[in-house]
C-alpha cells in the first residue's frame, strides 16, 4: 500500500484520467433532444416544468396496476405518454425505428386504439395531447392525429426553433427560419390565416395566460391550450405586437427592450421578459392601457422569471429566489434557490423551482416546503416522486404544507406522467397505469 494519501490519490487520479469520455457530440444530442421536447411544450404552457417532472427513471415491478399492461406489440427503445382528460396517449419507437401511438382510458386501463406510423423514426421528440388533436413530433415532422380514432389528419414540418401555440380549434405556428406566422385548422390542416415575414420578424410568439386558466388545471392537468385570443409576438427589434389569434389581425403594437435568451411570459395582460442593458433586468410591459414598459428588478445572472401572484414576479438568480412587487419594485421576500435554478413554475398557491440537480417547492411566502422530483398533480397538490421503486410517493398541499403518502412508486420505465389519481408510465414493452392512494 502506498505510504500516504497523496500517493493513493495520485493513483486514483491517473486511473480517472484514463477513463474515456462520451464526446461532446453525444452530450449535445442528448441535450438538444430534451430541449426540443421542452420547447414543443413551452410554446404552449407556462407551467412546462411538468415535462421535466415527468421524467423519473426507476427499476422494479409496479403495484396497484389499474389493468394489465398495455403492450405496444414490440420492444421500444423510447416511449413517452401524455394525458388529456381521461385518455392517455403513448408514442413509442422500436429498436428498428418502427413507431406507433396508442390511446387508453386512464381510469380503467382499457385500450381505445393503436396505430402504426407510416415511416420509421430516428428521434422521438414527444407526444402532446390536446382536446382536439394529438401531436406526435419526431424527426422534424409533427403528425396530427384524431384523438377518438388515432387517424392521421395532417402533418407539418417542425423545427425546434418554431413556436407552436395551441388553441382549442386552431394551431398557430411561427416559423423561426422564415419569420412567417400561420394559423391552421386542427381538423383539416387548412391555413386559417397567414402573416408573411416582415423586415422586423417575430423572434418569439406566445399565448396569453389568464388567471382563470388555473380553474382548468384540476380537470386536465396543466392547460396547454389558451382561451384568451391575444397572441403576443416579440420582434427582433424588441417591438411587441398583439394579434387576434382567431383572425391574425394586428390589434396593438408596443415597445419593449430586446430580450435575453430567457423565454418571455405573457400573463394577464402583461409581458414579462429579461434583457441585459447592460445589467440583467426584469422588464414588465403592460399590454393593455396606456402605460408602457418598465424595469422592476435588476440583478446578476438572472436565470428564470415567472409571474407569481397578485402584482408579483418571482426571479431566480445564481444565489436566490426573489419575489418582487411589480407596482413599486420592492422585494417582498428572498430565499435561497436550488443551485442552477433554470425555471420557475407558479402553481397559484406555491412555486416549483427547477435547479441543476433538484426541484424545490416553495409557498407563496417563500417558505421552502419540499424538494426532490416534483410534479404538479392537480389544482391543489404537488407530487414528490421518490428515486426508488416501492418507496412512497408523497402528495403535498402547497397551501398548507401538508404531506401525505400516495402509495408506492411503480417502475417508471421511460418516465411517468400523471393526472388526479393515476400514474401512467410507459416501459420498454408496455404502458403501466397505477392508482395513487387517496
Amino acid at each position: 500500500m502506498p505510504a500516504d494519501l497523496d500517493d493513493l490519490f495520485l493513483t486514483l487520479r491517473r486511473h480517472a484520467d484514463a477513463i474515456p469520455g462520451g464526446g461532446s457530440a453525444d452530450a449535445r444530442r442528448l441535450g438538444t433532444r430534451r430541449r426540443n421536447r421542452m420547447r414543443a411544450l413551452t410554446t404552449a404552457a407556462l407551467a412546462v416544468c411538468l415535462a421535466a417532472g415527468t421524467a423519473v427513471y426507476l427499476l422494479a415491478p409496479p403495484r396497484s396496476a389499474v389493468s394489465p399492461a398495455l403492450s405496444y406489440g414490440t420492444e421500444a427503445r423510447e416511449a413517452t405518454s401524455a394525458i388529456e382528460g381521461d385518455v392517455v396517449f403513448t408514442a413509442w419507437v422500436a429498436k428498428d425505428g418502427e413507431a406507433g401511438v396508442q390511446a387508453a382510458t386512464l381510469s380503467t386501463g382499457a385500450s381505445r386504439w393503436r396505430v402504426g406510423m407510416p415511416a420509421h423514426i430516428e428521434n422521438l421528440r414527444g407526444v402532446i395531447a390536446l382536446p382536439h388533436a394529438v401531436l406526435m413530433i419526431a424527426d422534424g415532422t409533427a403528425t396530427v392525429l384524431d384523438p377518438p380514432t388515432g387517424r392521421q389528419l395532417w402533418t407539418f414540418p417542425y423545427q425546434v426553433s418554431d413556436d407552436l401555440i395551441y388553441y382549442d380549434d386552431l394551431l398557430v405556428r411561427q416559423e423561426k427560419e422564415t419569420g412567417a406566422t400561420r394559423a391552421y385548422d386542427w381538423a383539416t390542416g387548412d391555413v386559417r390565416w397567414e402573416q408573411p415575414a416582415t423586415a422586423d420578424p417575430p423572434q418569439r410568439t406566445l399565448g396569453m395566460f389568464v388567471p382563470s386558466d388555473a380553474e382548468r388545471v384540476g380537470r386536465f392537468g396543466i392547460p396547454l391550450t389558451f382561451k384568451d385570443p391575444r397572441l403576443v409576438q416579440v420582434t427582433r427589434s424588441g417591438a411587441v405586437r398583439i394579434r387576434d389569434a382567431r383572425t391574425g389581425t394586428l390589434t396593438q403594437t408596443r415597445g419593449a427592450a430586446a430580450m435575453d435568451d430567457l423565454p418571455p411570459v405573457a400573463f394577464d395582460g402583461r409581458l414579462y421578459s429579461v434583457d441585459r442593458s447592460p445589467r440583467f433586468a426584469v422588464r414588465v410591459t403592460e399590454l393593455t392601457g396606456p402605460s408602457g414598459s418598465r424595469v422592476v428588478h435588476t440583478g446578476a445572472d438572472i436565470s428564470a422569471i415567472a409571474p407569481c401572484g397578485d402584482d408579483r414576479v418571482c426571479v431566480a438568480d445564481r444565489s436566490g429566489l426573489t419575489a418582487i412587487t411589480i407596482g413599486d419594485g420592492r422585494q417582498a421576500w428572498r430565499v435561497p434557490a436550488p443551485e442552477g435554478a433554470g425555471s420557475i413554475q407558479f402553481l397559484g398557491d406555491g412555486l416549483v423551482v427547477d435547479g441543476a440537480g433538484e426541484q424545490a417547492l416553495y409557498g407563496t411566502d417563500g417558505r421552502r416546503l419540499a424538494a426532490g422530483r416534483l410534479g404538479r398533480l392537480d389544482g391543489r397538490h404537488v407530487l414528490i416522486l421518490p428515486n426508488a421503486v416501492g418507496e412512497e410517493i408523497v402528495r403535498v398541499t402547497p397551501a398548507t404544507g401538508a404531506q401525505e403518502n400516495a402509495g408506492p412508486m411503480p417502475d417508471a420505465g421511460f418516465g411517468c406522467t400523471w393526472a388526479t389519481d393515476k400514474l401512467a408510465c410507459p416501459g420498454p414493452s408496455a404502458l403501466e397505469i397505477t392508482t395513487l392512494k387517496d
Partner: protein
Amino acid sequence: MSADDFDEFYRDTSQRLLRYAYGLTGDAGDAQDLVQEAYARAWQRWGRLIRYDDPESWLRTVVSRLSTDRWRRLRVRRAKAGSVAQPATAPAPSEDTVLLVRAMRRIPPAHRRVLVLHYLLDRSVAEIAVETGASTGTVKSWLSRGRAGLAAAIGADDSSPLLEGDRHAGRLG
C-alpha cells in the same frame, strides 16, 4: 449559441469533470454517465451558461447533486436510450484505487467532495469554500475529518503514515 464553443469547452473541461465524478462515485461507468448528463444539461442552457464566470463549477454542481441520489436511474436511462452511444470501457482500477474508492464510499458526501476537490482538482481551501458555500474553517474541518475517516476506513491507526496527508493543511491554508 455555438456548437464549436461548446465542443471546445467540452475538450477543455471534460477530463477534469470525469476525474471529479470518478472521485465522487468510484465507478467509471457512473462517472461517464454523470458527466454526459451534466454536459447535456449544460448544452440545454448553453446560451446562459457561457456567460457565467466559471461554467465548469456549474457542471461540478450538477455532478455533485446527481451523484448523491440519482446516478442509479441515470444509468438506467442511458441504458435505455438506444440512440445515445455508450462511452468506451475504462481500464480496470489498480488495487490501491479500489482500496481508496472503498474508503471514500464510507465517509460523508461533504467530506468526500472536499477531498476530491482538493486532491484530484488541486483546489485550495479558499476555492473550495467558494464552491461549496461553506466557510474556510468548515472546509478545513471537513478535509481533516475526511482524511481521518479515510484512515479509519482503510484500517490505519493514528500513527500510520496515511495521516501524512495532514501536511496538506499547510498548503491549503
